[in-house]
């Protein structure tokens, strides 16, 4: 197929509307008679609900209803268990409204509907709730310990899962190793914080018994299917639209957040359209969080620093419930080996309930943890063996001729973890080149002589992407000649309306501007799972390609009869079908679409059906594995703990690149989130699990002033697993950032002999480490 647009820096189809204020985000949806919801949330991390008295609230001005658990009927049952796993022995899920116990600050207790959000919040103030506070399991370590306050009193501990995977014979490997190094790594909590918070609008038509929902979700189709089931409606009568979604990054896929039940419920009960928009303070307690893990890790190497074995035993903070299952800790475990040969590997984790907000995948989804552990272990090896850190890594890379490479583990999609393709050493060398690693030592000592503390870091990762089960696409050519693509994966800023258009445009010989891509509307396409795990471009993208080819073939057949030439001689370009070599014998795609939908006479059997339309699905057998290397140079002010990131480079290989402009944007954004998690963003809780950072004054997203200039280079090792040869890239930017920044900071502060095993850092914490470093001999 021609590749005129595939691979080009095509500016985005979605932008003109977004730039002029004509986007449609959930909060922009206005319906006649629409009323507004507000959620009353628990101020306690753990408490018994003795009494919820809403009498005063119900009679407050403008209030239509106040719902508590008692009003919900079967919708008050525990919410669905999303992804079960044999090792997950206690998959607790929360209720849409708490029946008798609250287990984290922010857990919904009551839902108010009023004429305005203002009135709804007034009413929340009038609801009287008697709580009996219970001791809280506040920290991961304490919660895992014997005798800790139990988050769920029908369990005898807070451990809800214990899972181990092994490769080779780790004990033997450690026994005979020349060197063994042990570390404890702590990674703290963070929040995804899309600029658009969550929101739901629901409208119920009692006559047609149809339910329309606008939801800022990453998975509209599963939401529709689940709601239809819970509400006893036909899937066809429930339409869920994820319109423009203002960023997702993982936590906007949950199935179900309580509000995704409460809003439709209220709309049906009241016969009024209901809108609920999460405010930022709610977002920082009521939208899933991530990142908290504690790893006890150990590496065994030979005298040259060759890896013999790695062992990590870690605790995973699930928060108060675990609807999403074990995805994050499994991804952390399976990402850890990365681009390195790890012949013997033991990963074991315990998932632990705490009285904190739930955890589900946030961009990276455990990958940053695995990479942090592995890269920090290799830094330790390099230091102890006095081998250059780049050299240690080079010695352990999986080589280009070793693909497909079987890591020997089971990945998050329950398929064997088998790397499809890549060239790790080439990626690494390019990154060292971009950061001028060969000149680094000289530069660092010159700077030190001048009293400046510069540090350099370099870290590698492999990213599992593009997992199944499947996605699909329907492509239709309209009589206008305009091409419509409908697919089930929603979009939250990744540019699918453009990349999918490029793919279709090349096949059908039109411009991407002539292709309208519609995503995230179950009314337009009802099959699919959602946008997660860097899978949209790979799975849906290939479905689009397959559907486009089918439409092209149909167009050739129809054109053949109109142009009186054999189908194989028909070509498509510039919106026309023409006979190869005879441009004059041509017909427009629009004319073909009209011809393919005749009003009279017999329709040729080989047309199969009317119109230029086809639906195709793509179901990959396993995930495709991208990889990359990040490197950075930082300067640390040892007196203040201030950090300046001077330069940051990313070399990245996600197979064939559909649109470099969009790919670079994905990586730039990921790096910014990674840097946030490395130095600025920390969700603080006190010793009673009270969240202390529930505003943007205290939860610190990096701004333009903090971000470094970023240089990005691509390698393209096509994936053999799909026709387009693509791999996912959505999470690449974020994965190794904490590892690379911490390594660079440690390098800068080498004169103080400090050793960093945690993220995020802060000026205050750096000063503390420096002081302690000075004290320790």
């Amino acid at each position, binding site marked *: 197929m021609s590749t005129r647009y595939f691979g080009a820096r095509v500016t985005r189809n979605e932008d003109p509307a977004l730039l002029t*204020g004509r986007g449609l985000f959930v909060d922009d949806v206005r319906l006649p008679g629409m009323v507004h919801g507000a959620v009353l949330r628990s101020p306690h991390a753990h408490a018994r609900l003795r009494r919820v008295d809403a009498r005063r609230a119900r009679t407050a001005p403008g209030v239509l209803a106040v719902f508590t658990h008692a009003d919900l009927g079967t919708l008050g049952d525990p919410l669905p268990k999303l992804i079960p796993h044999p090792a997950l022995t206690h998959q607790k899920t929360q209720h849409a409204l708490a029946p008798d116990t609250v287990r984290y600050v922010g857990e919904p207790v009551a839902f108010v509907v009023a004429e305005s959000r203002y009135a709804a919040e007034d009413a929340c103030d009038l609801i009287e709730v008697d709580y009996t506070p219970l001791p809280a399991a506040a920290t991961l370590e304490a919660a895992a310990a014997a005798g800790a306050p139990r988050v769920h009193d029908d369990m005898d501990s807070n451990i809800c899962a214990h899972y181990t995977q092994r490769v080779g014979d780790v004990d033997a490997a450690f026994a005979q190793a020349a060197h063994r190094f042990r570390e404890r790594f702590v990674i703290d909590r963070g929040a995804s914080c899309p*600029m658009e918070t969550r929101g739901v609008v629901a409208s119920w038509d009692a006559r047609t018994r149809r339910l329309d929902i606008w939801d800022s979700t990453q998975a509209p189709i599963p939401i529709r299917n689940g709601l239809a089931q819970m509400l006893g409606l036909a899937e066809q009568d429930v339409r869920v639209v994820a319109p423009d979604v*203002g960023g997702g990054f993982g936590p906007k896929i949950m199935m179900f957040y309580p509000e995704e039940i409460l809003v439709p419920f209220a709309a049906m009960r009241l016969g009024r359209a209901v809108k609920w928009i999460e405010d930022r303070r709610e977002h920082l307690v009521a939208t899933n969080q991530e990142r908290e893990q504690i790893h006890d890790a150990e590496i065994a190497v030979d005298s040259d620093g060759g890896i013999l074995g790695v062992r990590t035993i870690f605790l995973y903070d699930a928060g108060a419930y675990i609807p999403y299952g074990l995805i994050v800790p499994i991804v952390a475990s399976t990402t850890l080996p990365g681009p390195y040969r790890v012949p013997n590997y033991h990963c074991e984790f315990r998932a632990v309930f705490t009285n904190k907000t739930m955890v589900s995948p946030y961009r990276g989804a455990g990958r940053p943890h695995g990479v942090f552990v592995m890269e920090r272990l290799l830094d330790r090896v390099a230091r102890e063996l006095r081998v250059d850190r780049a050299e240690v890594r080079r010695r352990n890379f999986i080589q280009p001729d070793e693909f497909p490479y079987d890591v020997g583990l089971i990945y998050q999609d329950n398929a064997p973890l088998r790397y499809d393709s890549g060239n790790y050493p080439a990626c690494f060398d390019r990154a060292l080149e971009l950061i001028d690693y060969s000149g680094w030592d000289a530069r660092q000592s010159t700077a030190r002589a001048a009293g400046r503390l510069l540090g350099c870091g370099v870290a590698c990762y492999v990213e599992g992407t593009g997992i199944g089960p499947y996605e699909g696409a329907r492509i239709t050519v309209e009589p206008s000649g305009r091409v419509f693509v409908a697919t089930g994966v929603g979009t939250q800023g990744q540019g699918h309306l453009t990349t999918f258009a490029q793919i279709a445009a090349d096949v059908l010989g039109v411009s991407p501007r002539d292709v309208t891509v519609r995503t995230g509307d179950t009314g337009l396409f009802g099959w699919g799972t959602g946008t997660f795990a860097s899978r949209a471009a790979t799975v849906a993208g290939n479905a689009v390609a397959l559907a486009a080819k089918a439409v092209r073939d149909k167009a050739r057949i129809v054109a053949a009869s109109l142009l009186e030439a054999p189908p194989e001689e028909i070509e498509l370009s510039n919106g026309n079908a023409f006979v190869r070599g005879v441009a004059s014998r041509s017909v427009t795609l629009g004319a073909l679409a009209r011809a393919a939908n005749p009003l009279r006479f017999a329709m040729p059997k080989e047309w199969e059906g009317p119109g230029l339309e086809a639906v195709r699905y793509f179901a990959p057998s396993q995930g495709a594995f991208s990889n990359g290397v990040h490197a950075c140079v930082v300067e640390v002010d040892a007196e203040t703990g201030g950090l300046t990131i001077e330069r940051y480079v990313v070399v990245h290989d996600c197979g064939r690149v559909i649109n470099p402009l969009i790919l670079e944007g994905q990586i730039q954004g990921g790096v910014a989130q990674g840097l946030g998690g490395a130095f600025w963003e920390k969700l603080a809780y006190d010793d009673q699990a009270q969240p202390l950072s529930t505003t943007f004054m205290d939860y610190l997203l990096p701004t333009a002033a903090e*971000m470094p200039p970023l240089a990005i280079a691509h390698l393209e090792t096509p994936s053999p697993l799909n026709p387009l040869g693509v791999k996912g890239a959505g999470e690449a930017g974020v994965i190794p950032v904490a590892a690379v920044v911490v390594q660079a900071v440690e390098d800068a502060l080498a004169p103080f002999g400090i050793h960093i095993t945690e993220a995020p850092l802060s000026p205050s914490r750096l000063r503390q480490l420096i002081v302690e470093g000075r004290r320790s001999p």
Partner: protein
Amino acid sequence: MAVREIALRINGRTHTGRAEPRKTLADFIREECGLTGTHLGCEHGVCGACTILMDGEAVRSCLMFAVQAEGAELMTVEGLADGNRLHPIQQAYWEQHALQCGFCTPGFLMTTLAFLRDTPRPSEREIREALAGNLCRCTGYQNIVKAVAAAADTLASGAHPDAWPAFARSVAVPAPATQPECASASDAPNPPVSKKTRAASGTRRKGARDQSRPAKRRRS
């Protein structure tokens, strides 16, 4: 509660609606005026998604009450493009891929508009600090910084004399490009600055759209 009639001048048009005094300017613009391009990302004055221009200066519309804006000239993202013709700043954001989900974008655009009026030839550092009052979670800012620099070049070329509609002109800073960083007229003792220069800015531009005539301060 005391609902009252509120009339606002937005993008050169008068919009009226009824609201309590507690209704924030952002909510009024979105709900009563139907201009939903102005977004709410935090409602406590940090994220900048709700940034609009008030008398030509970028402000957080979530930190004002609608009733306070009576008599002022407001500009929202909807006032930026000229029909289907994108404003040079919007064009630059598009070409540089300076937006992904697009939720924060209107706030960035309005901040950029006022910034480039006051600082026509900014350094990268100046751009980054000028944008630090707007949060973006998708782009990592790199392409936004590039877009602002690109827009600065386009505007400095003088090819777009109408780049600042009347309601984007500052009452505190006289002319755009002509006099970048001028001393605030507010050195003068009272009567207040705003009125004086407002009058000035009203008469200065002949042939500018009629909205450029100074709005009379209404009593509330």
